[in-house]
Structure formats: C-alpha cells, structure tokens
C-alpha cells in the first residue's frame, strides 16, 4: 500500500539506525565468533547486547568502533562502513564516539582532571580556562568534581569507571559504548552507574550501547536488548518482552538457571569409565 | 606545573652538558688545531733526521703557533727529509734566513718545529726554502755521545 510505504519511510527517518550491522562474519583460529550477525541500534535509545561469557560481546564493540576488522560483513556507523575507513576518517568518526572500557583505561600517570582534559587538549585549541570549565562540568555530571586532583590509583573501581565516563563524554559524542560497565562493582556503585547511563543518554541525547551479562542491571536501564549466542542473535526485544520469551535458552539466561540448554557439565568422557581408568583424562 | 618547569630546566642543563662535553672532547683531546686555518703559504726545510715529527705537528715562533707541518718526504738524492710547512698568511714577514729546529714539547711530549728569526730584510714567501735547520735530538745518539765522552774522559 502506498500509504504504508510512506509511513514506513517516515518511521525509518524518525527511528533511524545509528549502527547497522549485517552479515557479520568473524573467526578466530578455527572458531567462528560471529556467523552472519545482524544488528541495528536505534538512535537516542539505550541498546544492550547480552550473552554468556566468551560469546564475543566485547569483540563486537571493538568491531563497531573499528578496533578489530571483521572477515566479512557491513558495519555501518552513522552511515559509514567502519571496516573500510581510512585511518584519518576512522579517527574523525571516533571523535563522535565515547568508549567506556571495563577497567576504565585511565592514564595512571595523570590526575583525574588531566585524564578528563586529555581529549580536549588533543583535539581542540581551547584556552585553559575554558577547558577547566568543561572538565569540572563533566566531573560534576558523574558526581566526582571533588576528586579532580586525585590519581587513578587512589580511586575505587566504581569511581575510576565514573571518571572514565566523564572522559568519554567530554567531547560531547553522539554514541557511547559501554563494555561491561557493571562488572565487579558493589551494589551502590552499580546503582550509580545505572542511573548515570540513563540520565546521560536522555539529557545529552546520546545513543548508548551497553555490553553486559548482568541481566538485572541491563533490564533496569535498557530500552532494547539483543541476546547473542554462538555468533547469532538469539532474541531481541524490550526487557519485558525478553522476560516473557518462551525459548528455554532465553529463560535459562534471563533467570540465571544453573542447568538447561547450556549444560552445567563441560563435554567430557563418560564419568564412570574415566574414574575406573579406562578412558584417558 | 612548577614541577614541569624544573623538569624543563634540568633537561636543558642535560643537553648543554652534553654539548659542553663534545666541545671539551673536540678541543682538548684532539688535534683540532690541525683543521683550522687552511690559508697560508708553504715553505720547505730539509732535516737529516726528523725524529718523531708528524704531519700536522705545530710550527711555532717564540712559542706562538704560526703554522703546521703539512708533508714529510724523503729526498731520493740527498737522503734527507724534506718537511713542508704551511705558515698562516698573517705571518708573512719572517726573515728568509731564519732557522728551523725540531723540538720536543716538555720532556717526552710531541715534537714540533720552532723557527728562530734571522736578520734578513727579505721575507719567506711561497715555495721558499729554510736553509738553516737543526734536526731532532735522537736519544740513542745522545747516549752514545755521552758514553763516548765518558770513556774518553775516563782514559785521561
């Protein structure tokens, strides 16, 4: 129907995809990490990518940001194929991205202030006074303005991650990637990060992509989630939709069950035979 | 930022120290004087024995550096050594009856040529020849002479 086509184009324009991945293939050695993966990330939303450890979620983030090149497939970010960009253009694109590493990746030889100021000093010619304003503003946004003169080694894990977040947003990026932001934090710090991801995304108009396997936190913060396993998308939807998903695998993952489609036991020879010495270890 | 200032100053000092060392090495330990002042005129002098005189050895007058030894050849006819000396253009009023002697710096130092002025009204110029020369003192000859004298005085 012509009317429907017009409306579809309208919808596409409003909910356009910041990131579009199609036909992604990536192998490490003999193991296929991704097998014709297809993912779209909507603008202005918080999209989570979940899955068991080792499925390559972090690798996916690195492919999206051009740190790793896929074997095949299109990885479109803001309309540009990241895998084909020249270095200059890739760097240009990266100025619009923020990336939060799992351990923060702060520079250990500089203060918190210096760390957050780094992108400004490298990419702009702003005077020191203006840099100071911006840095303090970003630190205020993450609640760490008072820690400006501390060294990264003096910070707790949660605080380090928040400083890294301030640094990631200092150039006002359009997209921000979070690599396992909840891992290893105490409940309070986790709550802080969850709140920050949400408020920053909405107040700054960002598109956020969160890679995590913390089902509870992800459900609290994300608009949509992808569930990835064995290099393919297994499920997609809002947290409620995933909670209602009928697939046994999805249920095992979302509820954190010890045994199910993903077995408890790693493949091994027959137990009795091995104990009695017939099968080698 | 004060710390950066100290760092910058220290680095500057380090670099200056490095170049000062180079300067010290170049000027105090080498024959650098042999490379400066290439303009001048060349005169020759012949010696029966040049001893330890080397090319690029200094040539002085009254202790002042006036030139350099540029070549040392053996004359195939007279079997004496022909020494070419390049004298700096500034010293162009050396009498042409001056004498050249091979001297030793200190007790056991390097050998050099010392020019003692004569009284002539004409001066040395390019291709001139210094007529009066005094060869190097050879230690063995000296000892031989000493022993000979000792022996002859002993028999008196």
């Amino acid at each position, binding site marked *: 129907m012509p009317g429907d086509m017009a409306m579809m184009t309208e919808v596409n324009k409003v909910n356009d995809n910041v990131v579009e991945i199609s036909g992604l293939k990536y192998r490490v050695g003999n193991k296929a990490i991704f097998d014709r993966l297809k993912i779209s990330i909507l603008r202005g939303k918080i999209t989570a990518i979940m899955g068991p450890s080792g499925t390559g979620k972090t690798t996916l983030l690195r492919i999206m940001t051009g740190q790793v090149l896929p074997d095949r497939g299109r990885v479109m970010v803001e309309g540009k194929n990241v895998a084909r960009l020249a270095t200059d253009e890739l*760097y240009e694109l990266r100025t619009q991205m923020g990336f939060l590493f799992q351990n923060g990746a702060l520079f250990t030889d500089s203060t918190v202030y210096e760390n957050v100021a780094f992108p400004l000093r490298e990419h702009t010619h702003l005077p020191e006074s203006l840099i100071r304003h911006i840095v303090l503003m970003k630190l205020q946004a993450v609640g760490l303005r008072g820690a400006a003169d501390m060294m990264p080694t003096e910070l707790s894990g949660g605080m380090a991650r928040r400083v890294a977040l301030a640094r990631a947003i200092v150039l006002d990026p359009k997209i921000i990637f979070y690599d396992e932001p909840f891992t290893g934090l105490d409940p309070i710090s986790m709550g802080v990060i969850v709140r920050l991801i949400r408020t920053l995304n909405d107040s700054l108009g960002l598109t956020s992509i969160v890679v995590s396997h913390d089902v509870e936190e992800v459900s609290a913060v994300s608009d949509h989630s992808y569930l990835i396993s064995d290099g393919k998308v297994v499920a997609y939807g809002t947290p409620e939709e995933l909670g209602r998903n009928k697939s046994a695998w999805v249920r095992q993952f979302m509820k954190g069950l010890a045994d199910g489609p993903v077995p408890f036991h790693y493949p091994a020879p027959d137990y009795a035979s091995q104990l009695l010495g017939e099968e080698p270890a | 930022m004060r710390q950066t200032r100290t760092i910058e100053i220290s680095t500057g000092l380090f670099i200056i120290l490095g170049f000062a060392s180079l300067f010290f090495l170049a000027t105090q330990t080498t024959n650098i004087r042999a490379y400066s002042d290439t303009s001048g005129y060349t005169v020759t002098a012949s010696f029966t024995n040049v001893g330890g005189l080397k090319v690029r050895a200094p040539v002085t007058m009254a202790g002042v550096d006036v030139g350099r030894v540029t070549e040392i050849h053996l004359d195939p006819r007279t079997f004496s050594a022909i020494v070419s000396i390049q004298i700096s253009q500034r010293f162009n009023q050396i009498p042409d009856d001056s004498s050249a002697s091979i001297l030793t710096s200190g007790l*056991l130092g390097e050998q050099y040529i010392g020019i003692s002025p004569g009284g002539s009204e004409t001066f040395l110029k390019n291709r001139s020849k210094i007529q009066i020369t005094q060869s190097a003192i050879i230690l063995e000859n000296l000892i031989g002479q000493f022993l000979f004298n000792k022996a002859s005085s002993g028999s008196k």
Partner: protein
Amino acid sequence: MRFLLHEIYYIALDFLQGMGASFLFLLRLLSYTPKALLRWRIVWLQIYSVGAMSLVLIMVSGLFIGMVMALESYHVLVKFAATAALGTGVALSILRELGPVVTALLFAGRAGTALTSEIGLMRATEQLAGMEMMAVNPIRRIVVPRFIAGAVSVPLLTMIFCAVAILGGYYVGVDLMGVDQSAFWSQMRVNVDLVDDVLKSVVIKSIVFGGAISLIAVYEGYYSLPTAEGVSQATTRTVVNSSLAVLALDYLLTALMFHGV
C-alpha cells in the same frame, strides 16, 4: 640432528621477521617524527626521564672506567717506560670503543627497560586502546616522543661519558700515578684525530646505537602481550636484543669507517 636444524630454521625465521617488522616500525616512526617534534614539550619531558635521569649512572660509570683504564694502562706502559703514552691510550680506548659501547649498554639496561615496560603496561591496561578510542594515535602521542628522546639522549650521554672518563683517567694518571701532565695531554692531542676519533667514533656510533636501542625498546613495548608475563618478557628481550645489536653494529661501524673488515 634433524630436530636441531628445524630449531635453527625457526630461530632464523623469527630473527628475520623481527628485523623486518622492527625496520618497518622504524619507517613509521620516522614518518611521524616531524609532526611530533612540533609538540616539543612532550619530547622534552621524555628526554628528561630517559636522558637526564640516566646522567648519574653514566657519569659515575664513566669516571670509574676512565680511572681503571688509566690504572691498567699505566701498569703496562711503565714496563716499557712509555707512560707518556698514557693519555693517548686512555683517550683512544674510551673514544673509540668503551665510550659509545658501554654507554649504550648501560642505557639499554636502565632506560631501554623503562621504555619497554612503560609502553607495555600501557598496552596491558588498555591505555593505548583507550587513546585510540579517543581518536588519538598512540604511536604519535606516546611512542614517537620516547623514540626521539632515546635517539637524542644516547649521543649526549656518550659525550658526557667520554669527557668524564678522560678526566678520570687524567686524575689517576697524573695526580695519582705521577705521569707528566703536559705529556699526558700533548701526546693525546697528537694521536687523537678530530674526525676519526671524535666525530666518527663518538658521534656517529652513538647516534646509531641510540636509534637502535630506542627502536627495539619501543617496538618490544608496543607489541608486547598485554599480560604481566608479556611485559616482563618484552623487557628482557629489549635488554638482550639491544645489547647484541649494539655490539654487532659496533663491529660493523668500526669495520666500515676505519679498518675495512
């Protein structure tokens, strides 16, 4: 026997690959150098941490080596009543060989390892990847300044080493052992050639050594495995490979510049 040949084959291949990879890395570093020099503050800071901080080590070592050379030479020369040659002996041995080589080896151990472990740790803690994500080229920002600093510091340190060593030799020879002062210096001046012994030996050798050590140090750090063992192994490789490279280049340069194989 066959196994041994296999081992040698793989070692040779590894060696060739390492040489090739580091040479290509060098070309990359050199291409980034002009722009990196514009940010001279960063380079200056590296010269401080790599060069100025090694100063005490180099000066003390130079002093001792000069003194010991004078002492050893004296005891040999005195047998031939040739102690006037002490200045020459000390100066030539320091300027031609001991100065450039010992300085380079000390530098590889002290500063080379520091460079490798610093860059390696930045790799292991994802600081380099973080920089990439902030659209800052880590080779330009971190590696090149350190390479330049090393290549510049080694010649400076070598010159200081030689000067201090000769002065140390003077102290032992003249003040302690009683060699004639003017003989010490004047004989030295006659026998030490500006071009051959200072320019070629000290300056050119030390520039080549500095470049080689710095290249190996930053290369090993940049490509180290991002683990604790990885960094430690890389640091060890830096010391071993730099030392061997310095000694091999020393022979090569000496043969090329002076004696013709």
